[in-house]
């Protein structure tokens, strides 16, 4: 009867982000297209990262080095995405639903962030999600009462939301790198922090998964507050 698990984990992982999508972005076709394009960019970044992994032929399944270069590559492609959007910005604003609004760029950032996040969630989580339909489970090492499917769902949920906020903050930073460099630093560091925090899920630390979730949630809250501040600054 683990259709229950399947729906539970699917809703946990993608529920909040899909709610976000359907209630804010789905109405605007332009934002949807932006979202898909940014998903594509994330995919390319992970393709490059996995090629490096493939050729490095590392044996360890959880190598901190792997996390390091994959995070850095994702951030790099975030920057590429920003550059391309910057070039197309004028045309995009003109074609938007409300060309006079000063919040268009933020909306683009929000949609791109959601795209990045959803693609991340999809690629890393869809496999365990499909397997969760079967009867068998595998328990999380550090929290033996939870299944790996469920801890993965929570991690995915947090990461999608984190990516959304990171994109907003990163765009703010790229807009004026000399003055707003701290945004970029925050994004890179918190991305690394969040990724390394998930390593505690499978470690032999007691209730390690809780530590990971707490760290990620804290990062998420801080990032949300920071994004709200940047939005307020726009006039």
């Amino acid at each position, binding site marked *: 009867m683990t259709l*229950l698990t399947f729906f*539970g984990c699917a809703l946990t992982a993608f529920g909040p982000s899909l709610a976000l999508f359907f209630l804010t972005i789905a109405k605007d076709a332009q934002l949807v297209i932006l979202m898909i394009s940014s998903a594509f960019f994330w995919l390319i970044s992970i393709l490059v990262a996995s090629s490096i992994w493939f050729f490095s032929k590392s044996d360890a399944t959880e190598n901190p080095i792997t996390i390091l270069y994959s995070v850095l590559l994702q951030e790099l492609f975030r920057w590429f995405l920003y550059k391309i959007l910057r070039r197309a910005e004028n045309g995009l604003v003109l074609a938007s639903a409300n060309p006079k609004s000063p919040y268009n760029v933020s909306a683009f950032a929000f949609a791109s962030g959601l795209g990045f996040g959803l693609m991340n969630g999809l690629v890393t989580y869809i*496999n365990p999600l499909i397997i969760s339909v079967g009867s068998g*489970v595998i328990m999380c090492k550090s929290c033996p009462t939870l299944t790996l499917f469920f801890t993965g769902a929570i991690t995915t949920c947090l990461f999608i939301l984190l990516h959304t906020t990171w994109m907003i903050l990163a765009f703010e930073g790229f807009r004026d790198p000399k003055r707003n460099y701290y945004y970029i630093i925050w994004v890179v560091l918190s991305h690394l922090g969040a990724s390394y925090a998930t390593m505690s899920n499978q470690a032999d630390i007691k209730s390690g998964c809780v530590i990971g979730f707490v760290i990620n949630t804290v990062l998420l809250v801080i990032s949300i507050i920071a994004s709200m501040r940047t939005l307020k600054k726009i006039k």
Partner: protein
Amino acid sequence: MYISILLKEILFISLFMHLVLSQDTEFKKVFYKKLLPVPCVRILNSTSVTGCQSLKPTSGLLILTETQDLLNDFIKSDRKGKYVVILPYELMTNDNLRSLESSGKMSGVLALINGTDPSSPNSAPIIQRPINFSPDEKCPNCQFGLYRNDESRYIWNPNGLGIIQERYDFPIFALYPFDKASNNSYNKIINGVQFNERRSYERFPLKAVEFDALMFAAIDASTCLRRNFCSPVGGHSVYSTPSIDMNENDGKPIIIVSAAMDSKSLFQGITLGLNNGISGSIALIAIADALSRSPTPVKNFQKHILFTSFAGEPWGFLGSQRFVKNIFEPFNCIQNKTKPTQSCGYNTGQSGGCTFPCFRDLDFKRINFSNIDSIIELSSVANGISLGPGNIQQFKYFVHVDNENNAGNRLLMQGLGALSGGIGVGFVRNASEDGVFRKLPPSSSMAFLEKNINIPAVVISDFQANLSNYYNSEYDDGSDLDVSTIISSICTIANVTSQAIWLHAQNILSPTSPTANTPISVNCTLVGLLLDCLTVDASCSLFDAFRRSKDDRISHYTGVYQQTSQQLLSRFHYNVLGSINANIISDRKCKNETDCQFGEICTNLHCASSFTRYHDSYGAGLEFIENGDMIVVDPEKATWVESVWSDFDFNLFNVTSIGSQVSELMTGILLTGLSIVSVIFGKKYVRKTLKLD
């Protein structure tokens, strides 16, 4: 143009996702452990369905009920959920299985046949082997035998549980560790059960298993044959004679020496049938070998000696009935294309066969049924040793006949008795010496007597009143007997029988035949080698032509009939008997039989002529029609077919409780609901604080 870029992006994304999704088997292998217990399959006949089935993959928590009381407790308890019950084989009665089925708690059964207890320090067996156990019927094959129309039939197998003939709509797999792979599966499963027991079935996650063994066939034999979802149970019998020039008009009487070459049990993969199946055919080969070393060649005697090793006897006398049918009825070849066709794969031009009905060769016509002088059949003979008075080991075998008053029967019984040390005092006795006239036990001779009840026929066995205690069961593996005892038993009876045949073929068998005049003796080393080959080590020299790996124990289940390909057992008998009865060894070299002409055998790397042939064996109630399909022609006779299936799957894994699954679902629903609400409020808040319109 933007649209085309978008479409390309979507295409790329979907390709990537496809790649990601196709990797799921690697991840799955981490926590689904695939194991290999042996399944029980669906076998059908013209009216009914027997065996086990799992229409969809079913899973359940592992639980072991060691005694009948524990089993009753489990059935009556109010446990929730589905369980896979590990049941000692001794408790697998039909009543128990039906109670389990109706309790609704069982999703599958694992039959515990043997194995050691992993938690015991000195590897004690986990269950006691029952003293007798037979999953077959109480009167096996009596509906196909000679006495099927009698009012009262003798019950030869009173311990029979009859579960082989029952239909179970749930999967039953067997736990029978005998080699590395099965030991591995067994240990994992038993460890899983003990893991569950330590947690009292309350603290999840617990260990569960899933069966996936879909049998395609259903309803009855004619339906599944029509749908191509089953194949006939059967194989190839082997007959062989040193009389290379035997033909139907030579007027010479024929002595038939026969045995069954295979066996039957509930779980086909582990059918060994050491006593009931192999011992008789080992004796037959030993007799053939002994007679081949006769100082005067037996082919010059007054009577022919024809050795017949029948396949499929436990399934309603498949081999003997078809053999007798073919040599008794006049044969008409309706069509002969002389080339292999789609429905008959033999090169009939080369081997002198017929395309329809499909026969590789027609040499069986050279056997004239009316010339059959007598039949000597070797039944189970491995347990002929018992402890007599004063704890002295003594041999004892029994001769069964249909009619005590038949002169030919009396001659054979008395001759055997005399050769074994004296009529009534030697080690070969009449089965009716206790005054009970039981007639014949289920045997191949019945098929012959069906056509002519007066043919003298004796069935030699180690039992008197009841079939052996492990008749047609997985326990018939000889582990309750000493190997040297088994060899000795087979050797002794084969010795006496070969002497009797030698004398009888020269018309000099008499109630007073002394052994001193019979220069025939069985090679007991050969008996030992044959036993080893057929039970433990199929890499023995006699199997050289077939080259199997060591530690490969071959199953002695009859298997399914395939027209142009013979089972390992049939090929074994063909090659061994063929070499023993080889006539003239030519100087043409060969590596295997295909290097020689038809009618020749490759023995000692040289081609030699030999009157040794295969004969089809499948249900007497089944026939092939012209286009190669098989249909049921006589529902009263044996019509056994085995279902087709695709791969089995059996996995061991952890499961969580329903409660935790429900809480996962609730978390998801709550989180999604919460986020919808927050987004709506968040939009309002953002609009307000940023003063949007």
